[in-house]
C-alpha cells in the first residue's frame, strides 16, 4: 500500500504553477523531497494536507482521498512538522501537552513526556524563550505523540546544527522500524535526505524532475572529469549533462554506459540536482 499517492496534481497561482505532479510513497519508506527555494515543496505539502485546494488531480493519503469527510480521522494518524512551530508564546511544553490532549483523540501523554525528556526540554519554560532547535524539537515531540503512521515534515531540519539534525534524523530512522510507518520529508539540505531516504523526489520550478529510489540514483549516475581532448572518447549517449570549466570539463554520466576504464566518481544527490538544474536552463 502507498502511504501517499499524488496523481497528476496541478495548482496554479498567478506567478507560480505546480504542474502535473505524480508521486507515491510506499508504506514503510522515507521519501525525501528536494528542490530549490520556491520549487514548490511547501505547496506540494500543503496540497497533500488539503490546506490549499488543488485545481486538478488526485491525492490519497493512508488510503483516503484527502478531500473526503473521513479525512479528519486520517489526520489523527499524520504527524506534521512545519518549518516554523506556531504555539502561543506564553505556553510551556507542559501546557502544549495539555492542549494536545484535547486536540488528538489518540494523544499519549507518557510518550510526549518521554520525548520532552529525551530532548531535554523543560516543561516549564515559555515558548517565547525557546531557541529554534528547541521549537523544532517540541513540534517533533507533538507530532510523534499521537501514534502517527505518517510523518510529514517541511524543512524540519533546516536552521539546526549538525548534531541536533543527526539526532532528529535518527528519530525518523527509528520511527520507520515499524513497517506501516512512513515519512515524507522536504529539505534543501540534500545531505540529510541522502542519509535517511529510501526515495528521492526532485521538484524544480513547479515540476517533478524525478522520483526514484535513492540508491538506484547513486548507482545510475556518476561524475566524470575529462579534458577537452579525451571528451571525444566518452560515448555521447552516456553524457547527461556537462559543466565546462577553464581547465577541465565535468560530466554527469550514466555509469552503465561507460567501461571500467573511465574513472567515474560517485555523484551525490546535490551533484545530480545541480547538473540537472543547469541542464534545464540551457
Amino acid at each position, binding site marked *: 500500500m502507498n502511504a501517499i499517492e499524488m496523481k497528476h496534481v496541478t495548482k496554479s497561482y498567478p506567478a507560480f504553477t505546480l504542474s502535473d505532479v505524480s508521486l507515491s510513497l510506499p508504506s514503510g519508506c522515507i521519501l525525501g523531497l528536494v528542490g530549490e527555494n520556491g520549487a514548490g515543496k511547501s505547496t506540494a505539502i500543503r496540497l497533500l494536507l488539503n490546506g490549499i485546494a488543488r485545481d486538478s488531480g488526485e491525492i490519497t493519503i493512508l488510503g483516503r482521498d484527502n478531500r473526503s469527510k473521513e479525512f479528519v480521522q486520517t489526520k489523527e494518524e499524520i504527524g506534521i512538522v512545519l518549518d516554523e512551530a506556531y504555539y502561543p508564546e506564553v505556553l510551556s511544553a507542559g501546557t502544549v501537552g495539555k492542549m494536545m490532549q484535547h486536540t488528538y483523540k489518540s494523544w499519549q501523554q507518557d510518550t510526549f513526556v518521554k520525548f520532552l525528556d529525551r530532548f531535554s526540554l523543560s516543561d516549564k519554560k515559555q515558548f517565547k524563550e525557546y531557541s529554534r532547535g528547541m521549537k523544532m524539537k517540541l513540534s517533533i515531540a507533538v507530532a510523534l505523540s499521537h501514534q502517527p503512521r505518517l510523518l510529514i515534515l517541511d524543512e524540519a531540519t533546516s536552521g539546526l546544527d549538525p548534531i541536533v539534525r543527526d539526532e532528529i534524523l535518527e528519530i525518523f*530512522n527509528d520511527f*520507520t*522500524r515499524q513497517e506501516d510507518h512512513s515519512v515524507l520529508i522536504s529539505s534543501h539540505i540534500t545531505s540529510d535526505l541522502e542519509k535517511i531516504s*529510501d526515495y528521492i523526489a526532485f521538484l524544480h520550478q513547479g515540476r517533478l524532475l524525478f522520483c526514484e*529510489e*535513492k*540508491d538506484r540514483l*547513486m548507482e545510475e549516475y556518476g561524475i566524470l572529469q575529462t579534458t577537452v581532448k579525451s571528451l571525444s572518447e566518452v560515448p555521447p549517449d552516456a553524457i547527461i549533462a556537462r559543466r565546462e570549466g577553464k581547465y577541465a570539463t565535468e560530466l554527469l554520466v550514466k555509469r552503465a554506459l561507460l567501461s571500467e576504464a573511465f574513472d567515474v566518481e560517485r555523484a551525490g544527490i546535490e551533484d545530480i540536482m545541480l547538473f540537472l538544474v543547469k541542464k534545464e536552463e540551457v
Partner: protein
Amino acid sequence: MEIIIRNSSSQPIYEQIYTQIKDLILNGALAEGDALPSIRGLAKDLRISVITTKRAYDELEREGFVNTVAGKGCFIAGANRELIHEENLKKIEAHMQAIRQLAKGCGITNEDLIEMFRILEVEE
C-alpha cells in the same frame, strides 16, 4: 556479525551487503540455520535504505545462500558444498593470477614459483 558499509565505495550498497554476508557464510561465521537480522532491522541499524537491504537479501536467496520462511525471517541455507567449492576455486584462481603477474614483473619463472610453493609446504 559485522558489516561495514562504505558510502564512498564505487560498489553499490546492496552489493556490499550481499558480498559481506556471503563471505561470512563461506568462512563459516554464519552457519546453516542461523537467522539473519530482519531486513528492516538491518537497514535501520546500518542507516541505509530498506529497499536496498531487501535487494541484497533477494540476491542471497536467488543464489541459494539463504531461505526465507514467511513470517519468521531469513535463515542461512544448508551448506551448498559445490557452491562453496566453486567460490573458493574462483578465489584461488584470482590469487594465482595476482602471483603470476607479480612474478612476471620481476622475472621469476613458473618453475621458481613451484619451487617456492614446495618449500612452503615443507616448512608447514
